[in-house]
């Protein structure tokens, strides 16, 4: 009985208020549509902002590369070879001996002995104490030459020079090696000073870079079975 009465009430309510209910329903639908459209618009706008930012970054990257290309005049490969020679990826003892020999020959300052200074040597730095002989002019040439002249970056933390007997000159020299690691997310922009410094170093060192090896054609047939 109670249920029948309730259903009847609902029926009367719908019959009396159907225009209001329809309006409310339409309003809900319209609100939902507006919200959905706004969400789509916002998402599209967001995508557009992300894309604009991406294009901006790509443009900067491309412009930087073009600028670097023009600045270095395609010499960057040569500069990199020089830098690799100065600071190799791993230590190469033969190049140290060669560098000392070259500096000695070019300057006329005779390096008579060298010992590795283990207490001052680290993973990246090899410290060598050298003893040399030469007059003040040769010593001056040595000072001009040692930093880049041997094809390796050489620094000296301490120098003792005797200007009277020319025999007690002791110099502590450092040689460096370090692996290159990518650590910058942005392409670095080079400037005129970077290029000028490398051009200056290039003048000071004489490195003969090996050309790409050309495969040699064998003139005869290679036999797998010698018999």
């Amino acid at each position, binding site marked *: 009985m109670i249920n029948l009465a309730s259903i009847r009430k609902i029926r009367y309510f719908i019959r009396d208020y159907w225009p209001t209910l329809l309006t409310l329903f339409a309003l809900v639908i319209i609100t939902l549509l507006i919200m959905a459209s706004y969400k789509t*618009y916002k998402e*599209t*706008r967001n*995508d*557009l902002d992300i*894309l*604009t930012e*991406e*294009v901006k970054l*790509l*443009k900067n*990257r*491309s412009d*930087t*590369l*073009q600028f*670097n*290309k023009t600045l270095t005049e395609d010499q*960057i*490969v040569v*500069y*990199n070879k020089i*830098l*690799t020679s*100065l*600071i190799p990826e791993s230590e190469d003892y033969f190049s140290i001996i060669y560098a000392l020999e070259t500096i000695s020959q070019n300057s006329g300052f005779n390096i008579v002995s060298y010992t590795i200074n283990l207490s001052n040597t680290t993973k990246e*730095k090899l410290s060598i104490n050298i003893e040399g002989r030469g007059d*003040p002019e040769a010593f*001056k040439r040595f*000072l*001009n030459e040692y*930093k880049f002249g041997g094809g390796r*970056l050489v*620094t*000296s*933390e*301490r*120098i*003792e*020079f*005797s*200007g*009277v007997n020319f025999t*007690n000159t002791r110099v502590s020299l*450092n040689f*460096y090696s*370090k692996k*290159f*690691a*990518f*650590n*910058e997310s942005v*392409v*670095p922009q*080079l400037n005129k000073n*970077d290029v000028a*410094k*490398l051009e200056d170093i290039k003048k000071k060192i004489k490195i003969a870079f090996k050309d790409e090896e050309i495969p040699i054609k064998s003139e005869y047939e290679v036999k797998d079975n010698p018999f």
Partner: protein
Amino acid sequence: MVRGEMQSLSKKKQLYLALLINDKDIEANTRYFKGKQTQLLKYEKDDARFLPYYSVLVSALSTSSQSASLDSIEINKDRDATFIVKFKDYDGMVQFLKYVESDEFLNSFDALSMASLNLSRESGSTTKIQSALNKNYQLQFKGRFKELNDQPS
């Protein structure tokens, strides 16, 4: 309108990506160059840059006194220096001391002090006259050079 803008940006993105793929060797070379150059600049700071300081001292000696000669010099990467100057006569030493106190010389140093004065006679002097002639005056100085930017060749 937004869709049109998106299409235009997508085209630009494709274009720049194609350019970057084309220039990937240049990019790798640039990164390597900068990385190695940073290492170079860092390690160069270990260098004592002896030559400009040595040249300053040698030219100061020749300006001050004819009998002055540089006996020894020691310098480290912090520009701390110890040097001994030798003189054959007393007058030469006095001339040099006057020069040392001048602004022209002191301008090259952050700090400079005389550590010792030695009077020695060279061996082999038998007579009094020979002994007087073979006198050697030595002045030892300790100090710190001012940082010089230009490296004279």
